[in-house]
């Protein structure tokens, strides 16, 4: 496991440094303007001045060693475009992304597995409920999340006006109480969170349904049922106990994917998360910021994956089937 962690870190550091730098484009070269916008064009003298200021005039290798030693010391540098410390910028935004991802995962794992259990409970009687749920969940898990997000935005945001269209809080809000602040956060996070939940709920549903169905067909369960144990009791005692670890592991695994996958949803809802920042950093060729975000997210994913691995290991020791 350590090997894997160290290997990933090395690859991240190397990719992180060289990929943005071999991309064509200079962060200080502003010639074109977007429609309806303006730009200040820097002169050649200024570009040279800024290159020197950010140490970009030094040989690549020297820059690389400075980068490595700084990163290891936890210094991610100053953003070239925004002129602000990168770790500060990431910190401010990561909170919002984590808020979205964690609450979406909470909602989808809870409802997903509950629905899965309900579905499994009815599965053997070839019920319409199970059939319908299964179909809906499979469809949901296949539709790209930005399409779900757009649909929700247009319908609940623009049409019904139930939810704000953008941002994470009301602009210039002064809250009377902590509860007010909380309500505002929830109001803004509702749609993006719902989008992420809908696109990941199918996964948890299928997982818990599958594990419940497989447990329900085990010989010892059949015996237990023959002995007159109630099915509902069975579901709670045996099935739930069996399904909790794989669901937990799945939560950690998904967390990593969703952290970077939330980009699209954040763009749809103009949510000030890490993904939106990344998109801007790339188009501005802000090397320092790109590196910082990539590094942060990669490390977080590494932590989550390791957690998932550890749960799997525990499960194996306790004799669970790996297919769960």
């Amino acid at each position: 496991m350590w090997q894997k962690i160290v290997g990933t870190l090395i690859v991240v550091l190397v990719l992180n440094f060289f990929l943005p730098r071999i991309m064509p484009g200079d962060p200080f070269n502003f010639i074109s303007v977007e429609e309806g916008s303006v730009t200040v064009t820097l002169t050649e003298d200024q570009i040279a001045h800024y290159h020197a200021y950010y140490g970009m005039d030094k040989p690549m290798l020297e820059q690389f060693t400075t980068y490595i030693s700084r990163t290891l010391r936890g210094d991610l540098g100053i953003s070239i475009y925004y002129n602000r410390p990168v770790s500060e910028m990431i910190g401010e935004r990561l909170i919002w992304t984590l808020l979205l991802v964690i609450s979406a995962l909470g909602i989808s794992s809870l409802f997903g597995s509950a629905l899965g259990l309900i579905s499994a409970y009815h599965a053997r009687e070839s019920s319409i409920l199970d059939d319908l749920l299964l179909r809906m969940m499979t469809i949901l898990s296949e539709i790209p999340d930005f399409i779900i997000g757009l649909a929700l935005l247009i319908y609940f945001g623009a049409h019904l006006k139930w939810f704000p269209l953008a941002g994470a809080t009301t602009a210039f809000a002064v809250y009377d109480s902590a509860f007010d602040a909380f309500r505002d956060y929830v109001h803004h996070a509702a749609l993006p969170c719902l989008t992420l939940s809908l696109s990941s709920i199918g996964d948890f549903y299928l997982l818990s349904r599958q594990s419940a169905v497989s447990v329900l067909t085990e010989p010892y369960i059949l015996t237990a049922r023959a002995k007159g144990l109630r099915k509902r009791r069975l579901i709670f005692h045996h099935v739930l106990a069996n399904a909790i670890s794989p669901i937990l592991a799945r939560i950690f695994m998904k967390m990593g994917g969703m952290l970077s996958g939330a980009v699209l949803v954040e763009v749809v809802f103009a949510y000030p998360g890490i993904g939106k920042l990344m998109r801007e950093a790339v188009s501005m060729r802000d090397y320092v910021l790109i590196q910082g975000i990539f590094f942060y997210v990669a490390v977080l994913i590494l932590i989550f994956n390791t957690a998932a691995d550890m749960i799997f290991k525990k499960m194996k020791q306790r004799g669970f089937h790996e297919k769960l």
Partner: protein
Amino acid sequence: MKSYKIYLAIIIIAFAVYTLFGGTAHQAVSGASLESPSLTHPLGTDDLGIDILAQLIHGGGYSIFLGIFSAGSATFIGSIIGIISGYIGGKIDHFLMAVCDIITGMPQMILLILLGAFLGASYLSMIIVLAMLSWPQTARTIRARVLFIKEHDYIRYSKQMGTPLYAIITRHFLPPLKPLLTLAFIKMMSRSIMMEASLAYLGLGDPTSKSWGMMLNKAMAFPGIYFTPYWKWWLTAPLIALVCLILSLMLLSKEIEV
């Protein structure tokens, strides 16, 4: 024949017929800007006056073939690595699986944005990027299966009899792996199509293409599209087509799975 198969067949045949007869209507101005649907333009025209149905037909082929090529190369790389890793084992297995782990452990979407911006958005680089990021999944499943097949006696016999590695792979491994590979291929195809659409939405796709993702992007980038009636045909057509395509592929994979 199932409806989704008919749908897939329609997309491919329409594209083939359209291309064979040298259709250029997807890039030629053939009407006024933003015409509503009519007999000459069944789905209307976009802001340049290009027929939307023609774009849809061409884009369908584009999207499907993008999926086929990237999924094909990912399955190819994945299966080779999976077989080698599973069959040979030892240090090579260890190394290859570590590479898999590292690639799957990367922030995929962020890497996709970075690579998309770096390699540009041509058809080829799109395929390369998508294949590069999705082969490890195939490699893993194939490896697990190979480890299982390897234990069979007939493999051991042919090994003892000195059958060359290449022959063992083609004769003994590929046939039992076939259903698994097909399944992986279709799943990856739908994933690639979805990723292309997502990248296009972020403005990182190939803007000169008429892929469905790009059509969506262009329609949505039209300022204030929801305040005009144009979205009814310009935005809805590729959206429904795309969602149906992804679901058709899903149904297809479900059928193979069973």
